[in-house]
């Protein structure tokens, strides 16, 4: 059954996958960044190419993730148990909100930042919050990001069924929009609703 996102205006979109993150490893800004941060940065940067500094200073950012910074959390535990060391960078990165905090710093975003986590409904929850904010504040644009990562190195050999990793971002505008049917595909990762919307937008833009 097709799901529809009703009456939505998408201005721009970006997507990213793990094959792209290695390119960031030589950039000092990403030295301490998690995979979630790198993936989300790539998707968001693509989405914000034409957004002015004044819009960046006001625009709300809604970050949606089901698993959050699980890789950093498990990394913290491994170091703590095996080396008896509590690593501060892994701790600060373990917080769900750290992903969007990193994006705000790197992309000069000063508006409200929200982190939501609602399993497979994470992306839809982000869109719903954007609708609420549009209806009660004079915001012109709102950025919604979805990202999840499977922490392969931490979970290998533990019998966990892997899930996909990826990120998507859509820049929404206030006002009358149209109905969107996100790209149809097999379930990828819990917050992939945003990436599927982004992919559909980018496909239509090309055609």
């Amino acid at each position, binding site marked *: 059954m097709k799901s529809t996102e009703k009456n939505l205006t998408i201005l721009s979109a970006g997507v990213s996958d793990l094959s792209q993150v290695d390119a960031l490893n030589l950039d000092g800004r990403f030295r301490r960044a998690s995979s979630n941060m790198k993936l989300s940065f790539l998707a968001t940067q693509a989405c914000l190419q034409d957004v002015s500094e004044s819009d960046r200073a006001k625009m709300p*950012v809604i970050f949606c993730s089901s698993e959050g910074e699980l890789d950093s959390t498990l990394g913290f*535990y491994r170091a703590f148990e095996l080396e008896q060391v509590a690593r501060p960078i892994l701790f600060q990165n373990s917080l769900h909100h750290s992903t969007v*905090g990193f994006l705000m710093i790197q992309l000069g975003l000063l508006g409200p930042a929200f982190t939501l986590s609602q399993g497979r409904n994470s992306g839809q929850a982000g869109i719903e919050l954007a609708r609420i904010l549009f209806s009660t504040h004079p915001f012109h644009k709102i950025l919604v990001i979805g990202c999840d990562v499977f922490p392969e190195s931490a979970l290998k050999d533990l019998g966990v069924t892997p899930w996909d990793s990826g990120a998507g971002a859509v820049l929404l505008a206030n006002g009358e929009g149209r109905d969107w049917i996100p790209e149809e595909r097999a379930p990828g990762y819990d917050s992939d609703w945003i990436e599927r919307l982004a992919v559909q937008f980018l496909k239509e833009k090309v055609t």
Partner: protein
Amino acid sequence: MKKTQNPVFVSGLGVISCAGKNPRELLESVVNGKSGIHNGVGVVEGFGDQETPDRVLAMLFEVTRQAMGQSEMGCLTDQDGVIVASTTTRLGVWERAFLDTVGGKAGSEKFLEYFPYRKAGGLLEEFQQAIQHRGPGFLVLSACAAQLQGVAMAFDWIRSGRVNRCLVLGVETLSTLTQEGFRSLQLTTKERAKPFDRARTGINLGEGAAAILLTKDSLKNQSHSFAVVEGVGVASDAYHMTSPSPGGEGLVRAIDNVLLESGVSASEIPWVYTHGTGSRHNDLAESNAIAARFSPQTFVTSTKPIHGHTLACAGGMESVLAMLAMSESLVLPTLGLQDLDSDLPKLDYVSKLKTISVSRVLKTCLGFGGVNVAVLFRRTP
């Protein structure tokens, strides 16, 4: 010019903390200077230990019972919303299983049994199922500002007409990750926290839960109301992952949004109930932000030496105290504040309980990732 918009009322409050198992008990602890902090942390007794799977849910049920009981408006319907705020949700349940598995003390079976608890969203789902709530919900994980941000979201949600009421819950329990993590950042202290004091040495982590029931204007006659929410503001620092910008610029922007939205001037707000963690950076940034907009006569309070820093739940717990105190003509003190840090800007840092009627209180919260939230509450007759 004041904006004309339908006000949002607060019609129910609930709290569990290390210093009181309901709002009244906690207020009495603050008034009497009775701290629940021992050995640098505030532990809630009576809900099992950290690894009890239902402990977080049990705390949520209890504060829900308190808040809904006060509102006298019946159960939540599908026209009402629920927001749950936390940083760790049920981390304490599954982290031990992972540590034991990694350390070779247990096989992966134990880990796999507990691993499903890692998903934060499962908490909201289970809570809604347990109270048979079929309406919409959000789970907010915006660091230590999460529950106050939840209040801001609920304010907007009700004003948007999408829900009639919204129950905003916050919950936080201690875990190895939070205790060792904050220690690794050299932010915690074994002594009692002393916000704004020259001799402050760090923060005390605490655990607990809080509930705030918000109600739309047209339902106000069906229930007692504790306060009116007049305006909200959320803004980001984009400065550092774990430290606020020293000038508090992000919080200033959040405060400006509150003033703009409410149409209330800073001179009409006599009291700011701060995040006031007792860390060097927080207290300086927050005080600078307040001083940038408020007069030196503005009352400034932190009650974290009583109940600890309950992370995501802090903004909710302290809002409950702020509203109760305001309704009883009290301005609460900062326990242990003896020697004011001279680096802080001039404000009236309250060190002794004041019996004085105040009409408004601004609650502020700051969090990792540079999140800042401010919410303005007005006393109701």
